[in-house]
């Protein structure tokens, strides 16, 4: 037997260590479609309870939208359940190309290629377009999937301090000996919710002859006046060379991602990106749902406007109540607690009060930066947010953190 007692014991010890360090992740079973209110079984075995969901990436509230569900049903009827193929053998239907064209139009790029996920898009894109003659210069807080994609690429890897344009410019100047330079950033950073300074990044990139890459997963559909993304928000539509994004958050929330950008770069991905070449095509039912999502959000900005109002309202409620939040404009609103145990305790007590929000701590965020990350949705109604703030205030009073700043919370609870 190859799975020896020694191997089992070793893995059991490793898992026990994770538990011991408080890093063990447990799933909570949801007995409902995704939405502002969901029924959650937690702890496992308990009867499901209705809670307000403050931690989904369901920014536009489209995950269970009746028109999206109906379109997905129609796709299932007309194009089947699966394709049993990668794209380039016999896995490309007319609707795959139709969705790519619609994404191209929506994002304002030259072309688009679908991937099974944005994780896959990020894993494949760098290796497909850059070589050892090039350099990738990434913001130090980019998403883990970008880090993995960069590791798979032979180009030199370098980084700049988070959103520090002076440091980026130093790096761009330093790497002028390389064939191509690519600046790599998230559009909206997933943990802090802050928005990349894309206008300045593009200006520096143009000055120093570099390409710009943006992962807009936490922006596509709602950031910018018409929801096109961070490039619209920063006034640089058409000047980003590669945008990766996901269909798994605002754009219906099912799965799937894409690489959009310069025609030749997208074509290089079609020829060379391994997650595209060696992974199954996006299922027809998801493509059909995503097409409807793009129709809905191209017809009206109503949903992103609602999300914006909810975000402003929620940020004001938290600030007025005396919570220490990360300032910003995005619907990612981190409530800072700094201490990992405090973040876990607050999340647990919020759940008991009917609010589903998750504590994040090292290694997901830097040490001493523990927080509850709350996320807004266009599906939230005022009553949801009013109920949520009542629970936050109740729990905040219990831990006596209302009105306290960073240093005072750290003084009280340590790091």
């Amino acid at each position, binding site marked *: 037997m190859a799975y020896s007692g020694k191997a089992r014991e070793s893995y059991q010890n490793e898992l026990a260590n994770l538990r011991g360090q408080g890093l063990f992740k447990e799933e909570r079973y949801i007995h409902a479609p995704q939405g502002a209110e969901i029924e959650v079984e937690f702890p496992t075995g308990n009867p499901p309870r209705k809670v307000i969901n403050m931690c989904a990436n369901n920014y536009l509230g489209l995950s269970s939208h009746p028109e999206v569900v109906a379109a997905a049903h129609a796709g299932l009827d007309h194009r089947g359940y699966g394709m049993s193929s990668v794209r380039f053998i016999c896995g490309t239907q007319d609707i795959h190309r139709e969705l790519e064209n619609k994404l191209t139009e929506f994002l304002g790029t030259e072309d688009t290629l679908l991937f099974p996920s944005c994780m896959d898009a990020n894993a494949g894109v760098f290796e497909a377009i850059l070589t050892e003659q090039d350099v990738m210069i*990434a913001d*130090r807080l980019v998403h883990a999937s970008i*880090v993995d994609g*960069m590791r798979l690429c032979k180009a*030199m*890897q*370098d*980084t700049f301090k988070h959103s520090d344009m002076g440091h980026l410019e130093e790096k761009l100047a*330093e790497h002028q000996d390389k064939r191509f330079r690519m600046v790599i950033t998230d559009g909206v950073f997933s943990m802090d919710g802050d928005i990349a300074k894309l206008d300045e990044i593009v200006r520096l990139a143009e000055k120093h002859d570099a390409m710009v890459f943006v992962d807009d997963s936490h922006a596509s559909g709602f950031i910018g006046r018409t929801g096109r993304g961070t490039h619209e928000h920063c006034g640089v539509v058409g000047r980003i060379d590669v945008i990766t994004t996901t269909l798994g958050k605002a754009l219906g929330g099912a799965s799937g991602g894409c690489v959009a950008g310069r025609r030749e770069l997208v074509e290089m991905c079609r020829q060379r990106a391994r997650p595209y070449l060696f992974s199954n095509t996006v299922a027809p039912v998801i493509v059909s749902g995503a097409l409807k999502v793009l129709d809905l959000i191209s017809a009206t900005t109503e949903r992103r406007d609602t999300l914006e109002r909810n975000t402003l309202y929620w940020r004001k409620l938290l600030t007025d109540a005396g919570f220490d939040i990360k300032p910003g404009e995005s619907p990612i609103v981190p409530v800072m607690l700094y201490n990992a145990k405090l973040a876990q305790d607050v999340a647990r007590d919020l759940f008991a009060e009917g609010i589903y929000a998750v504590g994040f701590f090292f290694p997901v965020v830097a040490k001493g930066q523990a927080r509850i990350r709350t996320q807004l949705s266009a599906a939230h109604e005022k009553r949801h947010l009013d109920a949520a703030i009542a629970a936050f205030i109740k729990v905040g009073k219990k831990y006596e953190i209302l009105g306290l700043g960073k240093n005072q919370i750290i003084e009280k609870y340590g790091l």
Partner: protein
Amino acid sequence: MDEIRKVIRDYVVKEYLEEGDDREIREDTPLITGGIVDSFSMVSLKRFLERKYSIQIPDAEATPQAFDTVNSIAALVTRFTKA
């Protein structure tokens, strides 16, 4: 050797610490295992040292262990400067 240590330490403080980060970087402070320098960012340090001292540190030698403290980096630089 002391001069090399100072150069490395100054570079680490300037390059890797954010504004307001007042962590003290000593000669034995773990940089990579301590979460101050990640493996990507290590590349810029290697490149800086190679240019500053006109040396070539082979990738196989530029391990996270070798780059984990000011002392170990200084030892590496000294070895290749002499070589």
